[in-house]
Structures are given as structure tokens and as C-alpha cells.
């Protein structure tokens, strides 16, 4: 396989019953890329993202991570290398912040407990939430929860980080905190795929923009091409509405 190609999606289809949500997506992701996925609501952009780590099992098509075909058998192992950040944070509510961070790396023997704890403390200190290590998620604000969720994903040192509308459930003030943390990961060369409605953030952070409508990629390109010289009428219409 070509070097530095991390993820390949081939002819992906996903239906929920009779409802066809993804209609043949082909996609490649290279190491260090930051792909922002845009599209109207109901276009299938979140479903596309969720198919990559089989949060939704694809109806047909193939996904390769580092050249390895994702199957029912290896999905658990593959997921360790794909971090995911959800719209509603999904911190484990019966566990403290520290327990949330340690759960996967310790249980899956990726790190020894003391090493994991040391790393967790460093990361929490970095985002200014070390004092919340022993707090339960219910006592955190939305922005704090999402930053902890990002750190939880980072604990596994994933190759790719998927963000599914990470700021859609946040108040404007917290959005800034979360976006700057994502920006920081980007600056460190993290490979990122993000579904978002934050256009200015998309423009700033993306190395590539992918526009999805009706379960298909309609247009993709650099943010400059995409926002300044859109090729398709559908994207022109979309940008007119959102910018």
C-alpha cells in the first residue's frame, strides 16, 4: 500500500431499513490530514463518520485502516486506533474523570496503570482540569466534559481522531475552549476528521473539505478552493446560506 495513507473507504453504503443514508462513498485519508466534513442536516455526514469505526455497521463496502480490512473480527482492535469524540460527550457517568481516562488504556493493557495515571494527570493539567480528576462528569460543564472526552480519546494515542459535531451541544463560551484544544491537536500533526457546523473553524483548520449531500460526496478540495471557488451549484447554494 502507498505510504502514509491511513484510511481507505471503498464504495460505502449504509441503509437504515429502507432508508438509504450513504450511497457509495469513496474516500482516502492521509496521515496528518485534517478533513472537515460539511453538508446539510440529514445528508449522512455523521453516519459516514460513524461507519468508519463501525459505530454503524456498513451495509456494504470496505474500510481499510493501515491497509487492513475492517471486519467484525478485528473491529475491536481497529477501534483502539481510531479515537472518537461525540456530540454529547458520552463520558461514563458512573466513573470519575480519572476513571474515564484510565478505563480503556488499563483494561486493554495499552499502558500500565501507573504510566496511564501519570499521562492522564499531565493531560488534565494541560487542559486545566487536574482539580477535577476525582469529580464525576455530572459536576462538569459541557465544555469541560468535551475537553475530558477529547483527552480520553487521546489516552489511547489513536492514529485518527473522529469528531462528530463536537461543539453542537455547547454554549458559545465553551465552544471556544473545545475548538482551541482541537486546534492544538491539529498543530501537533494529529490526523483528524471532523463533522461540524462551525464554518470559520472549518476554513481555518481543514487541509481538505468534503461536502456530502444525499449520502454522496458532491465536492471536495482545499478550503480555499471550496469556500472561494466552489465548483458545483449545490455547494454554491449551501455556502450562500451558511456564510
Amino acid at each position: 500500500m502507498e505510504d502514509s495513507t491511513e484510511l481507505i473507504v471503498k464504495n460505502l453504503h449504509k441503509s437504515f431499513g429502507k432508508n438509504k443514508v450513504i450511497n457509495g462513498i469513496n474516500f482516502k485519508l492521509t496521515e496528518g490530514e485534517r478533513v472537515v466534513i460539511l453538508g446539510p442536516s440529514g445528508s449522512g455526514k455523521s453516519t459516514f463518520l460513524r461507519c468508519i469505526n463501525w459505530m454503524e455497521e456498513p451495509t456494504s463496502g470496505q474500510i481499510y485502516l493501515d491497509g487492513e480490512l475492517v471486519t467484525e473480527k478485528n473491529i475491536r482492535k481497529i477501534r483502539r486506533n481510531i479515537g472518537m469524540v461525540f456530540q454529547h460527550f458520552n463520558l461514563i457517568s458512573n466513573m470519575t474523570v480519572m476513571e474515564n481516562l484510565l478505563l480503556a488504556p488499563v483494561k486493554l493493557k495499552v499502558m500500565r496503570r501507573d504510566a496511564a495515571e501519570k499521562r492522564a494527570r499531565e493531560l488534565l493539567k494541560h487542559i486545566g482540569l487536574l482539580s477535577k480528576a476525582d469529580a464525576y462528569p455530572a459536576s462538569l460543564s459541557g465544555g469541560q466534559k468535551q475537553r475530558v472526552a477529547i483527552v480520553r480519546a487521546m489516552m489511547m494515542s489513536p492514529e485518527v481522531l473522529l469528531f462528530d459535531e463536537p461543539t453542537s451541544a455547547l454554549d458559545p463560551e465553551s465552544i471556544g475552549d473545545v475548538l482551541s484544544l482541537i486546534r492544538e491537536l491539529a498543530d501537533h500533526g494529529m490526523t483528524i476528521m471532523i463533522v461540524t457546523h462551525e464554518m470559520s473553524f472549518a476554513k481555518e483548520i481543514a487541509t481538505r473539505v468534503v461536502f456530502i449531500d444525499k449520502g454522496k460526496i458532491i465536492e471536495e478540495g482545499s478550503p480555499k478552493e471550496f469556500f472561494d471557488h466552489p465548483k458545483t451549484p449545490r455547494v454554491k447554494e449551501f455556502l450562500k446560506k451558511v456564510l
Partner: protein
Amino acid sequence: MNDFFGKIVELFSTPTYIDSLLHGFLLTIQVSYFAILIGITLGTVIALIDTAKPSKWLVVPKFICRLYTTIIRGTPMALQLFIMFFVIFAIKGFPSIITAIIAFGLNSAAYAAEVIRGGILSVDKGQTEAGLALGLSQRTIFFKIVAPQAIKNIIPALGNEIITVIKETAIVSMVGMYDLNMAAKDIGSGQNMASYIVPMFTAAMFYLATIYLISFVVKKIEKSLRKSDLRVEG
């Protein structure tokens, strides 16, 4: 009124009456205790099968579980007790206490299953997804994430079910068993005190005290399980 107090003195100063009450109470507790044990165990199994991800291996078990809860919840407890006594365990010399325990246990299992099932389903799907996304196994997700959260939702309703079983066991007097309810009737009958009011109120007190104690314990457990829901630390 004098007579009422006289009857109280009579009841509590006659060893055979006290003995009968305590014997009845013991039977009520024995039947309830083991029935609840069966109910919760079998109920958990049914709920787990019912909430498990559909697969070809589970089609038949899932169907059986649905059918079971439908039949149990759709017929009277007293009738189920009669069927156990006069049809299924109509064996001479078979201990009636075992028959009663099985009858109430099987009945309680259907209700406990619904309670446990509801508790498991009430856990936010995002909690499971978080575990899956991290690469955790279904087993780890269930035991570390779903079950601890489900238990918080299950405990109050399960406490209610325990209380229901204790009170419902009073119908074993219908098949001639000497439980607390039957003891009250016996002590109050013509051959004994010839007045029902005091023994029946006394039996009521026994039930009430038992159930009050259980509610108290359930509340305590509930409170200690809720500590992760507190919005403030500590």
C-alpha cells in the same frame, strides 16, 4: 374499649397465640425470601436474554421469555398458586412450602424481569457507544458501564416488587398454609379468642414493620448509589 385492651392482653399473654403468630410470620418470611431470590435470579436471566443484541441463537430464547412474562403477568397470582398446588405439584407428601416458593418465585421473576429490563434500557445509548469506540468488549461495557448505571434505576422498583411479594404471599392461606395471615384468622376464630380485631391488627403490624424496614434499607442503598449523580463534588 375495655374489651379491646383485654383482648390485647389476652393475645400477648397466651404463649400458644404468640407461638402461632411467630410461626405464621416465619413461614411468610421463608416463602417471601426464597421466592424473591428465585424471582431476582430468574428475572435477571430473562431480562438479559430480552435485552441482548438479536442473533439467530437467541430467537427461540427471546420468544420463550416474552411468552413467559406475558402468561405470568396476564393471569392471577391466586390461579397460578392453585395450578402449582392442584396440578403441577399435586404429589402426595410434597412439601407445600416448596410449592409456594416456586409459585411465587416464578411469578415474581416475570415482574422482576420487566423492572430489570427497563433499567437496562434506560441507560443512555451514548454510554455504550463510548465504550465501543474505545475498543472495549461487550462484556466489559456491560459490567463496568451499563450494569452499574442500570442498577441505580432498578433498585427502587425492585424494592417495590419485594414488598409486593411479601404481601401477596398472604394468599397461601387459600391453600391451607399457616402463614401470618392464616395465623391471625386462626387465633381470632371461635375455638381461640373468638374475636378477629386484635389478631388481625397485630398481623397487620407485623407486615407493616417488615415492609417499613425493607423500604428503609432500599432507600439507604438508593442514596449510596446516587453519589455519582450529585452535581457538586464530595
